[in-house]
């Protein structure tokens, strides 16, 4: 008995060939970019997202103690730290943070600029006088202002061209607007040793940017730059800013036992010091969340108003539809 006719065999052969060709073609045309920024889960993502205040405060500590030595944040004012929708420090805490810094004011009645302690109305001070000083002090690359960094970066994906429209739909359906923090988290945790390929010297010559050294084909990092998988081009001027336990918990906010501490996989209990410490990843995550807040201080207000507006619009649409239907019922159309 013939199970497969000639026609069936031809159809199957054609389909298989087409399939193989598609895969081969897509392999050749693969990738939007050579980096893939992982999508993280954030408390402020999604329809009902909101900031985790404790996380914002930890993130501020990371910015203040680590990043602010090179990165300005001049669109943020100390008073923002106390406003609703952010870390929500008390007015006294805000005043104290402001008073820690010295701000240039003036000119006074003698025509001189002078320094005074900061006030809540002041913006975060810049570590450098101007962008040229910033570049000069950093090997020619000025560290960018971080106020809007949560929105000034996208999350590159390494996908085939035909997957792109599917991702557009997926991103819209999951209201993905956290590309900035995803990138920042990736950047801060992607400092790695440059790749070394175990191939022959002759083969190494075919790889652009690689040099055969000490028996391995090593990726050549330009003098003064650092290898980072997340950064476009993989070589970034910023030295790895974070390390495990670089910033400690603020007094009284740390988990007190090993069990509670290590519930978060990015925290580590230090047995000899009997305290909970934060890993690089945790510090990166917290500062990325903080940078989302500095970029979008009204995020919570926006999403919560949105829920009300959407509810109202759904009601209005239903009523108008019923009104339309009632009107048109008798019309032949």
């Amino acid at each position, binding site marked *: 008995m013939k199970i497969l006719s000639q026609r069936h065999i031809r159809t199957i052969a054609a389909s298989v060939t087409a399939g193989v060709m598609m895969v081969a073609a897509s392999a050749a*045309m693969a990738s939007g970019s050579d980096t893939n920024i992982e999508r993280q889960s954030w408390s402020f993502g999604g*329809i009902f997202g909101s900031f985790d205040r404790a996380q914002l405060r930890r993130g501020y500590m990371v910015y203040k103690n680590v990043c602010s030595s090179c990165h300005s944040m001049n*669109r943020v004012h100390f008073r*923002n730290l106390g406003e609703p929708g952010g870390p929500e420090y008390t007015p006294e805490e805000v005043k104290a943070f402001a008073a820690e810094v010295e701000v240039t004011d003036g000119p006074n009645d003698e025509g001189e600029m002078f320094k005074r302690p900061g006030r809540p109305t002041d913006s975060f001070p810049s570590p450098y006088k101007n962008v040229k000083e910033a570049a000069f002090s950093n090997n020619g690359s000025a560290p*960018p202002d971080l*106020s*809007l960094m949560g*929105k*000034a*970066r*996208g999350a590159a994906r390494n996908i085939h061209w035909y997957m*792109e*429209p599917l991702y557009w739909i997926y*991103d*819209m359906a999951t*209201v*993905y*607007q956290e*590309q*900035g923090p995803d990138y920042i988290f990736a950047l801060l945790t992607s400092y790695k040793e440059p790749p070394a390929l175990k191939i022959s010297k002759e083969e190494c010559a075919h790889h652009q940017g690689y040099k055969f050294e000490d028996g391995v084909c090593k990726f050549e990092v330009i003098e003064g730059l650092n290898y980072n998988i997340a950064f*476009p081009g993989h070589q970034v001027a910023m030295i790895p800013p974070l390390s495990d336990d670089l910033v400690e918990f603020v007094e009284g906010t740390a988990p007190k036992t090993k069990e509670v501490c290590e519930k978060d996989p990015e925290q580590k209990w230090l047995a000899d010091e009997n305290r909970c410490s934060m890993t690089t990843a945790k510090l990166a995550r917290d500062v990325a969340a903080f940078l989302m807040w500095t*970029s979008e*201080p*009204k995020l919570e*207000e*926006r*999403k919560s*108003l*949105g829920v009300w*507006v*959407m509810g109202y*619009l*759904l009601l*209005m*649409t239903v009523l*108008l*539809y019923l*009104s*339309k239907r009632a*009107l*048109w019922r008798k*019309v*032949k*159309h």
Partner: protein
Amino acid sequence: MSHHSTYQPSTGFTRWLDSRLPILRFVDDTLTTFPTPKNLNYWWVFGGILAVCLALQIVTGIIMAMHYAPNTLVAFDTIEKFVRDGNFGWLMRYMHAVGATMFFFAVYIHMGRGLYYGSYMAPREILWIIGVLIFLAMMATAFMGYSLVWGNMSLWAVTVITNFFQSLDTIYQGLGTTLVEWIRGDFSVSNVSLNRLYSLHYLVPFIIVGLVVLHVWALHVPGNNNPSGVEVQNPETETLPFHPYYTVKDGYAIAAFLILFAFILFWLPNYFSHPDNYVTADPLSTPAHITPEWYFLAFYALLKAVPSQLGGVVAMFASIIVLFFVPWLDTSPVKSGKHRSFIFKLAFWMLIFSFLALSYLGAKSPEGWYVWLSRVFMGYYFAYFLLLLPLMGLFQKTSQQPASIEKSVS
């Protein structure tokens, strides 16, 4: 269609007003009693939606103007200050930005409806031409509005677009340079350019309002087209007063449109913008990929498809100029795509697909198969208007068309 005014002022005041300035009569004639074909489908709601979009953009725009200063030193900062410190500043800003996207979304559907149903055919040629003028004005306004942010993408978009005219140097030496410097007011895009972009960005929307008035007037003379493509023969049985039938139907559609608007506004406000525009303008640092907003991508693809700079500019402008001639390029005796041949339907949807494909390709670097595909779709786009429309109509028979609207709905 123009019908006899049936307005009867009922109070003393309205009679007094009517004899001096018949504005209420005008509203009654155009929005209340106006006889509208009863068989309009939902592709017809976008006119009303566009009117709402225009009003929203003007209102939010005037509000933005209360907080904005068009000087390169502070422009970006004034917007950020309004967004961060202003009362509902974030809402005004995002409404204006997302509003522009929704405006173009609606206008492309509106134009597509016109192309499918033959709304550009006699006696509605002027209506269509005014529509294309509105589209051009919208493109100018949107482009200028984006530049006002003075983010890095703003600066480089203006640099690239004003550079177009440089290509005229190949026709007559010096012509291009003079024109580019006249447009910019400076050797490169600078504060001088920003100031005039602001002035014109404030002006052109009001030109659009004027064009819309003409557009509706030109519509009301012959009356609306309808899905059957057959003109109204008996107003009494084939039309309905605009109010309440179409005011409520349009109202429902506007509400549904606002749901989409609100979804993007409140949860995806930056989805259609580019992260590079949250970096302040830097004349010494070009963004890795200069791309315009999504609604310009198809035209950007055309620009990059042609190898020469002048050729690309010509192709881009030609793609819109060709629209002006559609009423005369289409030779079909049948208006509505609904009753046209299968070939027409296929060709039309291929046109839509080409536009979408060009939009996708517009965001890609002009290399490899991206460029070749852009040329293919560009070829199809022009072939549709210059070859297919004239030819398809010659083979179109009127027999498939219903005899009247009444017959088409029974």
